[in-house]
């Protein structure tokens, strides 16, 4: 177990380095420079490039960047907020994005699970149809439509919630954006939960549990949901990262000072360090959450519990399980 985590962390470090290197090369290939103020003369640009080390070869820049990164230094911003350390720039924005995204994930996952379970338990009734309709709506309607609709009704008409984000009321002003963001997650989780629950409810171990006399909530929670959860987690993990890293459109609508808008501005103005720092943080979060999910599998499904050696289910095997159902995979 310990060696498994160690291995995973080591692989993660190298993945992150590779991502940073690719980003460095890509940004080098992009036209333009961070110093695009029209008042600057060519000489001044050369001086600036020298000052920030941008005249060096890519690999030298990369090496220097990594050396700084190890000490927790992401560098400074070139033009969005001149010479401000990036850690300081992100410090205020990232928690806001994570808070809104986290609320959206929690809301979406919980509601999605409940809807999916209700649909599966009332298979082929009006409740099932209603849940299916909600999930089709959630998957097909983009989040900004929900955002605008919420903003108009709850914000403008009823005035229950602030229309724009305010740092004084971080929770209240996150409610509408998180609802808007959670719709897609909720819909996909609901659809998925329904299918998984249907399969589990038709299984023989459910019949055995019933013939033991178990019924009601313990039957559903102890036997059905736990088995249905395994593939659901696989779908949920990428959704979590998507939401945590902020959504540009929803951030704009509610004017949330999050990282989504920062990233777009940085790309537009060639603020290399900001782009790299944010991408690095996204990748790290993604890898981190995937690691947590991998360990969670072991907690929920004893069949893929970490043994220390090989012989456990990899990411692709799990997706195969998600896509083709568990019967085929179980034989592997």
């Amino acid at each position: 177990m310990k060696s498994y985590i160690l291995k995973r962390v080591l692989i993660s470090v190298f993945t992150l380095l590779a991502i940073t290197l690719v980003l460095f090369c890509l940004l080098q290939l992009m036209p333009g420079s961070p110093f695009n103020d029209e008042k600057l003369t060519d000489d001044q640009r050369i001086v600036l490039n020298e000052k920030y080390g941008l005249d060096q070869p890519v690999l030298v820049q990369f090496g220097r960047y990594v050396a700084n990164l190890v000490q927790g230094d992401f560098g400074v911003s070139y033009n969005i907020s001149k010479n401000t350390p990036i850690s300081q720039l992100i410090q205020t924005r990232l928690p806001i994005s994570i808070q809104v995204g986290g609320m959206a994930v929690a809301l979406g996952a919980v509601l999605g699970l409940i809807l999916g379970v209700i649909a599966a338990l009332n298979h082929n009734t009006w409740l099932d149809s209603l849940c299916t309709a909600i999930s089709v709506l959630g998957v097909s309607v983009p989040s900004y439509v929900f955002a605008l609709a919420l903003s108009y009704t709850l914000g403008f008409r009823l005035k229950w919630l602030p229309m724009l984000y305010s740092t004084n009321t971080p929770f209240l002003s996150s409610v509408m954006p998180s609802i808007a963001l959670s719709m897609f997650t909720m819909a996909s989780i609901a659809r998925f939960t329904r299918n998984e629950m249907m399969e589990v409810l038709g299984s023989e171990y459910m019949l055995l549990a019933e013939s033991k006399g178990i019924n009601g909530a313990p039957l559903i929670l102890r036997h059905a949901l736990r088995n249905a959860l395994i593939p659901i987690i696989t779908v949920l993990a990428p959704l979590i990262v998507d939401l945590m890293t902020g959504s540009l459109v929803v951030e704009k609508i509610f004017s949330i000072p999050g990282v989504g808008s920062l990233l777009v501005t940085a790309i537009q103005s060639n603020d290399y360090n900001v782009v790299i720092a944010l991408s690095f943080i996204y990748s790290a979060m993604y890898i981190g959450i995937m690691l947590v999910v991998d360990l969670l599998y072991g907690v929920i499904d004893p069949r893929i519990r970490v043994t220390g050696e090989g012989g456990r289910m990899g990411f692709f095997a799990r997706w195969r399980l998600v896509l083709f159902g568990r019967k085929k995979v179980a034989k592997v």
Partner: protein
Amino acid sequence: MENTAKETVLSIRDLSITFKTGAGPVNAIRGVNIDLPRGTTLAVVGESGSGKSVTFKAAMGILASNSVVNSGSIVYNYRHNDGTPATVDILKMKTRDIRRHINGKRIAMIFQDPMTSLDPTMPIGKQIMEGMVWHYKTPKQQAWDKAVRLLTEVGIEEPEKRMRQYPHQLSGGMRQRVVIAIALACDPDVLICDEPTTALDVTIQAKILELIKRIQAERGISVIYITHDLGVVAKVADFVNVMYAGRIVEAGTIDEIFYDPRHPYTWGLLSAMPDLDTEDDRLYTIPGSPPNLLHPVPGDAFAPRNAYALNIDERLDPPLFRISETHYAASWLLDERAPKVEMPPELKARIERMKKEGI
């Protein structure tokens, strides 16, 4: 059939069950009568789709949601803890009450495939203890001790270690032993075994059958075997009910069915049993296939496959003719007006041989 010397534990009367399917209603069970005398082993034999599993799923209240019970009763006689006798009709009970008072506690079931009938995410021990804790609020430690005893009883070595393991860590035979331990956890007095050995290999089959037999002898419980394997029936049963297309076509003691079968379908089943001493090289099979119960079956459902069918079979379903106190068969051949028809000579020779060998 009725009022034999022993008390009847489970008495199924005139049971009729229909499944609503996309193609229309399927009359899976068409008037079944079965009696289970206390402390005996009853085998229900029939082809796939003859309705043998459905009959007993009805007794467990675990029928599929698209099924409708049209008529009939499943009367269960039991004793309260203080010894006073009680009688209930399971079909009239609410599902919640069946779960609370019948399932696991009084009637337990063993399923066909031990590979799929255990919850893959729950340790073995917890699955055995679950029923006890659920029904009797047994304290954890007490339930644990009892589960360990049960695992020992069903022949699992190192029970303490197995308690903490998960189903995928056990072999098929061991899993079926665990399923049996789960069924015994709340000391039921009826055990329904739905093809308990079909999914297991032959050497394990014999061991599981012996295990169930031993448990029955030790605990004095009544056992129902649902099977298509006459070899299993011969090893374990006291009484045999032969089922065809949702009806009981012949019922009798094991000797009556094996040595003096009267229904042509039973003749077919017995002839289709593999046997080393038969002179014919080819294995006999009953021609044709069971009728599609989606459509109403006029007359005797077996008539189209029956070489001995009479004209009346096309029109009228035969009633159960009484042959002895315990032996009944639904065949017009038993009517006094019917022509005298003997069982196939090959089968007769085989039965003579079996009698001599005293199997």
